[in-house]
Structure formats: C-alpha cells, structure tokens
C-alpha cells in the first residue's frame, strides 16, 4: 500500500520530478508527431501510387511492348466480370518535348492512353487542371488554340464553348472550390490616380506602379513584358503570367491580378485593347496532356503558375522500335506537333515533371506498334520489284499490335489483400492462356513468331504495391529510420529521469531509512521508486500523447501561424513536397505503443535509483539529523 501512497505523494510534492514528467512529455510528443507525419506521408504516397496505376499492372518493361493485348483484355472482361471493373492498354516510351515559343526542350516519358478508359481505371481525371474547371473540354482530337477577347459588353472572356464549360463547373462547385480557383484574382491594392502611368510602357514596370506593389503579397517580377494602356476608365496591365486590370474608381485605382476571372492561362489577342471577340486560332492539331511540373512552376501557396498557354503548340519526338527492339529501318526520332490541352498532377514529382500523355492510337501508330506484315525480302528481291503503285505488298500473317502495359481496375468488392492476390493469379493464368493460344495460332509463320516470342515471355503481372514496392519501401524505410532516430534521442529522457531520481534518492536517504525502520522491505522500497518512475511515465506520457495528438491535428494551422510570424518558417513547402498539406492524422495504435514505451522507459530510468534506495541501511540513514 505504502508504495502506491508514497509514489503518488512524491509525484506532486517533489517539484523536481516535474522536469522528468516534462522531459517524458516532450519526448512522447516528439516521437508521436514524427511517427504520425511520416506515417501520414507514407499513406498519401501509397494512395497516390495506387491512384495513378490502377490495381493490377500487366507489363513488359521493354520499349517494344507485347502483343495479344486486345484478346487478353477481351478475355479478362469476359472471364472475370465480377472482379474486373476496367482494363486499358497503355504504351510507355521515351522522347523529348519542345516548347517552340520559348525554345525549351525537355526529356519526357511518353504515355499513350485511352482517355475515357483511363478515367475509369485510375485517378488520372482528378489530377487534370482544365478538365476540372472546363469539364468535357479535354480531349486528344485535333483542335485549335483558344484566345481571350472582349465580349460586346466589355468583359474579357474565352470562346463560348469554354465559357459554357466553366459555367457548368461553377454550377456544381462549392463556394470553397470557387474561392480556391479564384484565389489569385483578389483586389490587391488601390493606388492614387497620380501614380498612374502617363503613357504606354514596354519592357519595364512603371515606377509608380512598382512602388505601389511593394510590400504586398504579390510581387511583380522585375523584367516582364508590360503593356499598360487606357481604355475608357479601365487600365490593363499585362505581364508574363496573365492579364491584370487596373480599374479607376473615382480618383482611386483598383489593381486586380487578373482581368480574366476564370482559372488557367490563355492566349490573348495581339493588343489587349483589341475589339475582336474571343476565338480559336492556329491549325488543328491533336491534343497532349502534360505533367503539371513540365509546364508550370509550383508556388508556395501550393498552386501553380503555368507558363504554357492552353492550346499552345508543343513538339513531341519519339523513337519507334521494331518488335525485336531494334530501330525501325530508315527512321530516327519522329516528331509530332501537338496542342497542350491540359496538365495532370498525380502528386509524384518524378511523374509530373516527366510525363506526357497522348492518345493511345496515335502513339501506337507513330512508334510502329500497330499490326504489320513483316517484309523479309532481301535487297535484291526488292530491287527487282517494279517501282511505285505496282510494287507488291508483303503478304502472310501479320505481327499483332503491341502495347507496353495493361492497367486493370478491380471492382470494389475485391477489397482484401488475399482477394487482390487471387485476382492477380487469375489474370496471370488468363495471360498465359491467351499468349500461348496466340503463339500457337502463328505456328505456321516463323517470321512472325521470331519477332514476338521474346516480347511475350517478358510480361509480368503485378499488383500496384508490387510495382511501386521500391518507392513505397523507400518511404517506409525512411519512416522507420526517422522514428528510430527520434526514439534514440528520447533516450535522453530516460537519463534525465535517472538523474532526477538519483537526486531524489540522495535527498531522501533518511526517509528511506525511516520507511525501512517501520518494516518496509528492500524490494518494497525499490518498488516505491519503480512505481514512481512508472507514474512519471504515465503522467508525462498522457500529457505528451494528448499534446502530440492536438499538435498533429492542428499541425497545418501551426505552420500557418509560423508563416504568419515569419514567412521563412515554412517547414512543409508545397514547392518541394507533392502534397499541399502536412498529413495530420494520428494512428491510435502508434499512440498507444509510444505511451507504453514511455512508461517502460521511465521505469528503466528509475532502475538505478531504485536499486540504490533498496541498498539504504537504515541504521546509517537514521544516525544523524
């Protein structure tokens, strides 16, 4: 009884122990925050990985791809209707992307997709920018570039198709979503009419205007193309990232970031004051979707500043390979001009800064992955052929069309790991059947077999987790490593508990003698200090868990507060991280585990002191006052 009683009494009577409680509290808080943020990060990474891949991936990791995918997909849908929601072929190859307007060329991963099927297989659609705000306008068909213009009532607007699409979005969007999309279009400041630039100025921002922008959230870049002109009472300022308006209101000027009130970056007519209405320009070209980081700069707000206008022409170059992996004879890079219709953000920088999405059929065609009849005649035979239209086409069985990947979305009923693995194994079995049947059908065409046997044998069926195992594994390892590091740092708390308890035992030697003189055993006295240590762990751990949980819940608000105090205090920079917000969920089992560890660590810290207390010899302890 006395153990419990004395340890509770000492807990709130000995002030020094508050330091030990505080240390335990801080360490528990620290470890809990680290585990929660890292764990949340890991979950986000997993979600994103799954979101961009679908559930199962059938792929050949080669550039020449594998055949029989059409029969395979048809068979999958026929044989597994209860498990498979959608399956879509994807071609992945490499190339370069050139932005002719500024002469920039980047290496890219070219992804050929069927847009509608991909929408059903993974979260691709959620990452699209223009498709969100102008629903139904993103497609790979031939199209022109839209440009802004003044409507009859003096508003700056897009062509009617796009305006209608935007109104469709607005009708369904929540006020928060609309506010988010318009966040760059608020009134920035008012300037006195005297500061108004007197004349059109190109190349530099008028000094008066620049002064007015100083110390504001929004800073005008130094060297941009600026055109300021007067039109009635409206002043327009144009710079690299869009259109800005300056409105005169009495003797005040109101400066708006953008005159066009919808999201996105669009072409403007030559003169901002042109009386022409909005419209479409340029020759029709197929569409391309770019990874967002390819065509935009990430801002601290988590938004993007796009430097490629919607519909702007880009040039994509790819290399066709023959089924055996060699260069197609007589070809090198093949270039196709495309129009940038949208950009997609998966949230994984490596993907968003590298990927270009084009139509599956178009890519299949240009990289020669469509079906063809092999031509094995040698040069002499070809030389004896008549020229031109009379030339005979090679005949016989064709090499089937190829793809490099088939992405499969499973039905929501396939929800456990076991079910996913079972589905994977069935898919694998179906592939083996389809491919062997396909090869058997071509038994009599050795020149075709020779070209596809290799590619067929390289196909793997994986779950999204297996496919992303290395990436997820790296983040997982990082989580464990950081947790271990912080746990090691927390050992400091054990030492602090040890030191403080040692001091208490030193101070309390006489009291320990008294307790022993009335019959307490050595073990019992040790028990007082061990339960005292446990009590420190229980109290400190409880406070730490509570504070840590609250901290994690409000971690983004805390960061906002820090930014408000000093902008450089931004720890989670959306410019750097794939996610806008810091993960803010606490896993209860983590919290309980840390709590128990804190109690055990506190008991461990009290061990030496308890042992010393148990060794106190009452006669010695009681001899003097």
């Amino acid at each position, binding site marked *: *009884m006395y153990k419990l009683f004395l340890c509770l009494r000492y807990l709130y009577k000995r002030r020094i122990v508050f330091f030990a409680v505080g240390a335990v509290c801080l360490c528990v808080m620290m470890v809990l925050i680290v585990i929660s943020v890292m764990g949340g990060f890991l979950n986000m990474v997993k979600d994103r990985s799954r979101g961009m891949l679908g559930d199962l991936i059938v792929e050949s990791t080669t550039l020449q791809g594998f055949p029989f995918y059409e029969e395979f997909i048809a068979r999958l849908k026929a044989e597994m209707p209860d498990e498979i929601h959608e399956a879509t072929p994807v071609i992945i190859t490499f190339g370069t992307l050139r932005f002719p307007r500024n002469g920039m060329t980047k290496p890219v991963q070219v992804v050929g997709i069927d847009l509608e099927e991909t929408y059903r297989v993974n979260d691709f659609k959620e990452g699209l920018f223009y498709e969100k705000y102008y629903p139904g306008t993103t497609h790979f068909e031939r199209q022109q570039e839209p440009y802004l213009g003044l409507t009859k009532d003096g508003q700056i607007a897009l062509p009617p198709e796009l305006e209608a699409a935007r109104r469709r979005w607005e009708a369904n969007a929540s006020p928060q979503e609309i506010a988010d999309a318009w966040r760059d279009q608020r009134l920035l400041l008012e300037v006195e009419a005297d500061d108004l630039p007197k004349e059109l100025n190109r190349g530099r921002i008028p000094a008066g205007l620049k002064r007015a922008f100083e110390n504001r959230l929004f800073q005008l870049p130094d060297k941009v193309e600026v055109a300021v002109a007067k039109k009635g009472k409206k002043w327009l300022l144009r710079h690299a990232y869009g259109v800005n308006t300056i409105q005169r209101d009495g003797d005040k000027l109101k400066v708006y970031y953008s005159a066009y009130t919808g999201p996105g970056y669009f072409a403007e007519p030559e003169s901002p004051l042109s009386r022409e209405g909005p419209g479409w320009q340029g020759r029709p070209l197929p569409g391309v979707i770019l990874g967002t980081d390819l065509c935009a700069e990430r801002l601290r707000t988590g938004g993007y500043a796009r430097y490629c206008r919607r519909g702007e022409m880009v040039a994509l170059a790819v290399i066709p390979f023959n089924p055996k992996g060699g260069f197609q004879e007589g070809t090198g890079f093949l270039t196709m001009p495309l129009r940038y219709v949208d950009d997609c953000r998966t949230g994984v920088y490596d993907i968003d800064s590298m990927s270009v999405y084009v139509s599956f059929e178009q890519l299949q065609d240009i990289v020669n992955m469509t079906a063809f009849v092999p031509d094995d005649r040698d040069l002499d035979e070809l030389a004896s052929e008549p020229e031109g239209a009379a030339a005979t086409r090679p005949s016989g069985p064709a090499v089937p069309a190829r793809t490099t990947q088939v992405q499969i979305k499973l039905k929501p009923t396939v929800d456990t790991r076991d079910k996913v693995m079972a589905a994977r194994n069935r898919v694998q079995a179906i592939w083996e059947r389809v491919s062997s049947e396909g090869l058997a059908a071509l038994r009599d065409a050795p020149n075709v077999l020779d070209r596809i046997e290799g590619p067929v044998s390289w196909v793997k069926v994986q779950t999204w987790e297996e496919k992303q195992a290395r990436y997820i594994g790296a983040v997982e390892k990082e989580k464990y490593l950081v947790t271990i590091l912080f746990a090691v740092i927390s050992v400091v708390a054990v030492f602090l508990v040890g030191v403080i308890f040692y001091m208490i035992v030193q101070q309390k030697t006489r009291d320990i003698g*008294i307790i022993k*003189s*009335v*019959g307490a055993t050595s073990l019992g006295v040790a028990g007082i200090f061990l339960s005292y240590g446990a009590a420190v762990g229980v109290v400190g751990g409880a406070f730490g868990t509570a504070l840590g949980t609250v901290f994690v819940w409000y971690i983004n608000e805390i960061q906002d507060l820090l930014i408000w105090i000093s902008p450089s205090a931004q720890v989670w920079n959306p410019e750097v991280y794939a996610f806008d917000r810091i993960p803010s969920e606490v896993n209860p089992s983590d919290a309980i585990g840390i709590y128990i560890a804190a109690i055990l660590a506190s008991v461990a810290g009290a061990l030496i002191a308890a042992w010393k207390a148990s060794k106190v010899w009452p*006669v010695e302890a*009681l001899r003097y*006052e």
Partner: protein
Amino acid sequence: MSDVILQATGLHKSYQLGKVSLKVLKGVSLTLQRGEFVAIMGASGSGKSTLLHLLGALDIPDAGTVRFEGRDIFAGGSRARDRLRNATFGFVFQFYHLLPELTVLENTLLPCMVGNSVWSWFSRRHALRRQATEMLERMGLKERLRHRPNELSGGERQRVAIARALANRPRVLLADEPTGNLDAATGREILSVLKSLNEEGQTIVMVTHDPLVAASAHRIVSLVDGRIAARQEAPKAP
C-alpha cells in the same frame, strides 16, 4: 512460558571506520521481562544505540543472539526482520524522523500501510485510521491531524513519532534518546507519556545518557566500553 519477552545473549558488534575496526559491543547479554521499562545508559559512543538497534532487528550483530519470546530474531532472514520491525517492535528516535511530505495522521499510519497490501488496506482503512486518530488524540494531537511535521513543535513531533511507533500495537517499544532533542519541560512530558504507556503494560526499552531521564525506568542498564557495567533497580520501581 516465562515472562521473558526479549533475551539478548553475547552480542558483539563492530564498525569499520576506514581501516580501523571499532568494537562497539563486546559481549552484551540482557534479559527483558514483559511489561518492563528498562533504561540503557552510557556515555556517548558506549554502544547503547547499537544495542537498541540490535534488540529491534534494525541491525545485525557480528556474534550473539537476540530471542524474542524464545525465537531467534536473526534466524529468518531480512524478510522476517522487516516483519518484526513492522509489527513487533516500535522505534522512537531522538530526531523524530517523520516524513516531511506526509501529514501527522499519514505519518502515524505509515507502519499500517507498510504492513498491508493495497487490498487489505482498502478493506481495513477506516478501522486503521480510527485507531491512529485515537492514538494521536491520546497524545494530545487531536487538532494536528492534518498538519505537516514542519508545522509542529519538537515535543509534538516526538509524540507523533511515538504514536507512529505504537500504530501496529508493537510488543516492545524501543526509544533512542526520546528526550535528547527537547527542552527539560517537554522532555518530562514525553517521559510521562512513556510511563503511562508502560503502566498499561507496554514493554519499553529506552536509551539515554541523562540519569534524570533514566530514573523514570524500572531498571537501568549501564553500558561502559561495550559491556554491561552494572544493573540497578530504579528507585521509584513499582
């Protein structure tokens, strides 16, 4: 069974002071009758406190035995000695030795808490608390139950210490210079408490260097140089 409650035979005890071994007790034998009030006298360093500690199982002799009602108190190991100290012997020290964090009542209850597990404490706590309160009331500390030791005078503290020593109704009360730290009047007060306890049948062994204090006892045992020098009946023996 005879009326002998405590019997010490041939007790030897030495302390190691650096390299020198200091022989404190050199064969002390002492017999204590039930209900007796014995004073152990001697000069400073004569070993009288050591003898008291050995009688109360607070310390272990180098040689010799102490028998409580015929049983060797050092035979059962440290657990047995802990139990004896808790229930059979009650100690009162010169410097009171109260726990500063505990109230008067809690200090008094300390031996009861040590002697009971959590569950038996919770089932018996009302009885034990009433018993301790009665003891403290008897010591004239009724108004002081919730006070802390540092709020009490020396005499009051010593009375709390006596109440604590008696909490588990010990068979023998061992007092080490109980008046040594008190002024004469307060000392007399404490002595009268001890005497009245003795009159109710409490066996008491008291260590003192003050002949006036010793005079309250039935019997005085003088220790000189680690041996018993003489025994004499107190003049006012009943």
